[in-house]
Every structure is written in structure tokens, then in C-alpha cells.
């Protein structure tokens, strides 16, 4: 084998690896990534998939958290202060979960507008606001609440 041929071998090997990796990545990006929606998005957009996991986030509405009694289903409302989404979650709620604080939930939107959460993501740090939530609040105009009554 000449030097050139040998180099070719490795180039082919390299391209092959990259090709396989690219194929894996592209197919995974099709269906393995999870989109984020704010409550306003959910209320105003029609095309949010119901068969796919999505994330929604906002603040846990004051007084909305109903702890489970006989089963383990927690119910609460996530709001961006314009629109609300009712959430139900079966399982143990993270330690940091509080009413009035930012939260992101992962799960599926039901046809009836309820959101069935598979996971409730609260932060380790209670002083922290998830950026998506902050953005959703900004979009809904509630972050700095510019004088809409003026």
C-alpha cells in the first residue's frame, strides 16, 4: 500500500464515523428534543403537539397547589400572570417547590387543556428563577410590568 492509499483508508474511516454520527444526531434532533412553551403560548398557539413531551414553565399560582390525599397526584396551576395551565403530577414534589416560585414541568399536554407532568424541575437554589420562566414572564409583560393602565 502506498502512503496515499493508507491516508485514504483513514480519511474514509474518519468520514464514515462522522457520517454515522451526523445521521444519529440528525435523527435524534428530529424527535428527541423537547420544546419549551409558556402558558401564553399554550393558550394562544394551536399547534402544540399532544403526543410529544414538552416543557412548560411559569410561576406556581398562589393558592393553587392541592396536595394529594389518597393517591399521589399533586395539582397546581402554572401561570405567567396572563394565562394559566392546570398541571397534575403524580409523584413526590421536589423539596424546593413553593407556591409563587418559578417552576418548569416536563410532560404532555392533554387534549382537554390539562397538562400531565412526568417531571417537576425545581431549582436547588430557591433564590433562582429559571431563565425560561423569566423570559416567559417578560414576554407576558409581567416581569417589569410596564404601566399598561396608563
Amino acid at each position, binding site marked *: *500500500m502506498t*502512503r496515499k492509499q*493508507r*491516508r485514504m*483508508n*483513514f480519511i474514509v*474511516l*474518519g468520514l464514515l*464515523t*462522522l457520517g*454515522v*454520527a451526523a445521521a*444519529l*444526531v440528525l*435523527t*435524534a*434532533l428530529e424527535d*428527541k*428534543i*423537547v*420544546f*419549551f*412553551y409558556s402558558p401564553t403560548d399554550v393558550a394562544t398557539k394551536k399547534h402544540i403537539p399532544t403526543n410529544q413531551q414538552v*416543557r412548560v414553565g411559569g410561576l406556581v399560582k398562589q393558592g393553587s397547589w392541592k*396536595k*394529594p*390525599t*389518597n*393517591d*399521589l397526584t399533586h395539582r397546581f396551576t402554572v401561570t405567567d400572570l396572563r394565562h394559566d395551565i392546570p398541571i397534575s403530577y*403524580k*409523584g*413526590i*414534589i421536589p*423539596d*424546593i417547590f413553593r407556591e409563587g416560585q418559578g417552576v418548569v414541568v416536563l410532560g404532555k399536554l392533554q387534549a382537554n387543556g390539562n397538562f400531565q407532568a412526568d417531571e417537576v*424541575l425545581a*431549582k*436547588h*437554589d*430557591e*433564590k*433562582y428563577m*429559571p*431563565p*425560561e420562566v423569566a*423570559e416567559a414572564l417578560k414576554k407576558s409583560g409581567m416581569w417589569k410590568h410596564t404601566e399598561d393602565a396608563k
Partner: protein
Amino acid sequence: MIAEIGQFALILALVIAIIQGTIPLAGAALNRAQWVAVARPAARGQFLFVIIAFCCLTHAYVTSDFSVANVAQNSHTLKPLLYKVSGVWGNHEGSMVLWVAILALFGLAVAEFGTGLPPTLRARVLSIQGLIGVAFLAFILFTSNPFLRLDPAPLEGNGLNPILQDPGLAFHPPFLYLGYVGFSMAFSFAVAALIEGRVDPAWARWVRPWTLAAWCALTVGIALGSWWAYYELGWGGWWFWDPVENASFIPWLIGTALLHSAVVVEKRDALKSWTILLAILAFSMSLLGTFLVRSGVLTSVHAFASDPERGVFILGLLVFVIGGSLTLYAIRAPQLKGGGLFAPISREGALVLNNLLLTTGAAVVLLGTLYPLILDAFGGGKVSVGPPFFNATFVPLMVPVMLAAIVGAMLSWKRADIGAVFGRLKIAFYIALIAIGVTAWFAGNLKDVLAAGGIGIAAWMIVGSALEIAERVALFKGPLSSSWRRAVGLPRSAWGMAIAHGAVGIMVAGITASSAWRVEKIQLMAPGDIITVSGYSLKFEGAKPIKGPNYHGERGLFTVTKNGKAVTTLTPEKREYPAERSQTTEAGILTMVSGDLYAVLGDKSKNPAKGGASWSTRIYFNPLVAWIWVGAILMAGGGLVSLTDRRHRIGAPKTARKAAKKSDDIKPEPVSA
């Protein structure tokens, strides 16, 4: 006063680092021996002052000096001593001080032990280290001063986030930083080599031990972090593909590739520019990880409080270090002449495959981590990329790496007879097949076929590594005593490799079993209720209030029995830390070889049906999960064994190196102490 000494020491360290980063570099270029000679004393001085600063900060923490803002924000008088100390690096400012302290330590090591290095190379390496030190010291002094005073001093501190008050996490950052900063050595050597325009096997021999040591520390650091997440977060999971985790995993992957490619440079004088690139990338990825974690650019479960101002500084630093070194690489690398050419079927061919797959894997993890940013930058919406993505892309890339690792280890250099190697690995192959068959039989459904494959790979790696050693010591082919002699005489690097490869197998078994066959039960339990998980009966005896030094909470009690015989009791806790106003979950865990029984106590709720209170509880059985960390520690252990190989001994005189090289792989050599 002490805090002022600390700050002053940092300023002095910065000044010395500036000298260290410029004069020796200029001296090496202009051929001035006196300037070159500045490098070593400067490295010593930098170490001295950085350590003084570090000690001052530690002193402030231990004595709870709340007039130092950093201490007031992150410590508390009631905190146990261990966490006062670990609190030093449990926050952004302090962790940066630890970072430069380790950097200075490595610099000192080169200055003291690098006596066998050519003086100009050593001066250049130390200079590059000095420049990195300049960047980080400036970063600390200008954006994150840990010695800032608070006036008036508060009477009590804010406290350390209780979730971070944990022995596993106390030592996670130091190990991680040893790894990250250790890669800076490989980086400095690479940049110095680019400046000199020369890369040869001797260079690779110098770089390898540093890389190996860094890699071991990083392995331990990542393992500690994942172990912590496992028992502290209370979800029974141990790896979440979270950006912060990925930030440490990408440098690890590149570092692993670098370890392997440096062997090729050392033995075959080939793959030079590629190895240089990896050395630059390993450290660059460490820096990128720091940036991602600190700047708030990415959302993560366990981020430091983020600050975009600092982000700008780190980004600038990143562009300077990575951009600068890669530009230098682009200019100089084409001049590095490759040495021997080689056949695809050979040890070096296998190592190239290893490198290709590991770096592609690292690229995929990087892409997945940054994809939400990239998509958002182009207006594609907010997304998150989670475990499903990484499982679907990264895992398939690692399968061939693991299959080939065992074959590659048996291939000879230059040109190998792959048929003969397959012949020698027959036993491993059959055992792997049997393992797949048995697992698939017991699991009995289609989803588990993939998992059975995972167990097969694990068996392949464990048995294959054992075979490799067995063959080299001619086990069962002669008297045991001669095998023993051979085993003792076998180069430590051969042992290290076999141990590390076998350890990967152990880890894969743990990963596969704990992800595929985990049993999870969530329910409400009143005292007296019994639940059965994987053959174990857990009786909930109720929960009692507890009080710790800086927390209070509830402790549940489960008595565990198997087939009527008492096994143990589990005591999961739910703690409330009033100073930090937060809660944590302490899982009750029984670790066994076959798997972990893992119990979590959830919320208390009124239960009218049972006439009293009941608790939500989560019980997991995580099969083989402890194997993951045993595997990781063994892997690092393999690295350490390899590090003791005489060829890697830092400062080994040239003749000894030559002798060691001659007696290369198979021939036993006498072991000296």
C-alpha cells in the same frame, strides 16, 4: 487584616505571573539564558503567594469572619468544620482561588521535577502556565474578589446551600479542578511544542504522565459528582446529561482520546499534529465548561449563581486562550512532519479508531449541550436536549470503542495479525455470547435485548482484559511461580491498561443493569404498611422528628426483610435548614453487590382513611448500580498504576528511559523501588 494579606498575596501572584508569562518566553526566543532562568523561581513564587491567599481565605472561613463578604454569603457559624473548609470552594470566588492554587501547584511541579526537560522547553511551558495564571488571577481580582470586606459585618452568615453540605460534594470540586487544571499542563506543553516547532517521542513521554494524572483526578471528580447526585438528590438517578455534567464529561472524553494518541506519538512518532490538537482541546473544553457553568448562558440543575458580567470576562479569556492557541496551531501544525506510516490493522490503527470515536462522541455531547443555544440564536424556539438525545447518539458511538479496545490492546504495533488476535480472544467472545444469552433469557422481552447486549459488552471487556494479562504472564502455560515473576515484571502501564479497560466493563455492567432493570415504586404509606420490591419487604414503621446541628426534620424508619429474615433498617430523612430556608432529602440506601435498595421519604399528608398521617414514599431497587462507581474508581486506579510505570517517572534520566524503551512491552524488566 488576614483578608487584606490574602488580597495582597493575590496581587503579588498576579505580578509574578506576568513576569513568568513573558520574560522566559522572550528569553527562549532571544536565546538569553538569564531570562530563561527566571521561569523556575517565578513558578515557585507564584505558588507561594497563591497558597498564602488560599490559606487566608480558608482562615476566614474556619474562623467565620463575616466581615469578609464571601464568607458572610456562604458560611454560617453552625456549620460543621468540614463544610466550613469545603465552603471555601463551594462558591464562585473561592472555587476560582482553588483553581489558581492548583494551577500554581502544577507549575511548581514542573519547576521542581522537570529537571530532565530541555531548559528552553521548560521555560516555555512555565511561561504558558504563567499566562494562564495571569488570566485567571486577573479574573479573580477584577470580577470576583473573594476578600471583599463587608461593613458593618453581619452577625451571622447566609449559610452554604445545604444540598452542598455533603462529604461527596466537599471533595468533588478539588478533584474536578485537578483534572481541568491538569489538562493545562498538556496544553502548555502543546503550545510550547508549537512554538518550538518540534514534537518527538520524548515530548510525548513528558506530556503523558501529566495527562494521565489529570485524567485520573477528573475521573474521580466526575464519579464523586455522580455519586453525590445519586444519593443526595433523591431521584435514584446518577447521571442526567445536565449541561454542568456534560461540561466535565467533554474534557474527560477528549482527555481519554489524548492519553491514547500520545502513546502513538511516543511509540511510533506519528499522529503528532492530531495529538497537539487534542492537548489544546482538552484544556479548551475545561475552560468552556467553566464558562458555561459560570456565565448563566445555559440552564442547569446545579449552576453557581450566574453573572453575565463575569461571563463576558470568561468569554474574552476563552477567545484569547482557545482562539490564540488554535491560531498558533493552524500556523505551525502543518510543519510538524508525521513520522512512520501505518497499516489500519495495527495497534496504532486501533488507537486512531479509538480517537475518532471518542472525539466524535465528545463533539456530539458538545453539540447536544449547546444545541438549545444555537437553535435559539437562530430563532428556532426554546428547546431542551435531554437524556433521550444523548442515549440515542452517544451510546451507539461508544459501543465500537469498547468492542475495539480489547482487540486493539492485543494487536501489535506496525502490522498485526488480526486473525490470531481473534483466536486469542475466543474465550472472551464465547463468554460474552453466553452473558447475552443468559440475560436475554431471564429478562425475556424485546426491550431487554439491547440491555443484554450491554451486559455482553461488559463481559467482553472484563474477560478480554483478564485474558490479555493472563496471556502476557503465560498463566497455566508453565509453573505458577514463573507466571508470578512475569506478572511482577510486566510493565505497570500494561497492568494499568488492563485494569482500566476491565473497569470500563464493570462500569458498563452497572450502567446497563441500573438503567434497564430499575424498579421504582411510589406510594402513600401509613405506619405499619408493607411494600415488596425485588424480593425485599419494606415495612414502614413511621417517622420521627430529628434535630441536627444546623437542621431539623423527620426521619422515617423502614425495616427490611427478605424471605422472612431481617436484612437491615433504612432511615431516609427529610431535613429543613432554617438558616438557608431550604429543604433536602436524604435517601436511605442499602448497597449490595447485586444492587441498591433506595428509600426516600416524601411529604406527610393527612390520611382520613387510615385515621392518621401517612407519608408518600419512593422505593427503588437499582441493580448493580454500585458497579458504576467501583468501575470509575478502578479506572482511575488503572491510570495511577500506569503512572507508576518507570517510563513515566518524571525526571527519569535519559539512559533509564532508553533502557525502559528497549525492554518495551513484553520483556519483563526488573522492578526497582
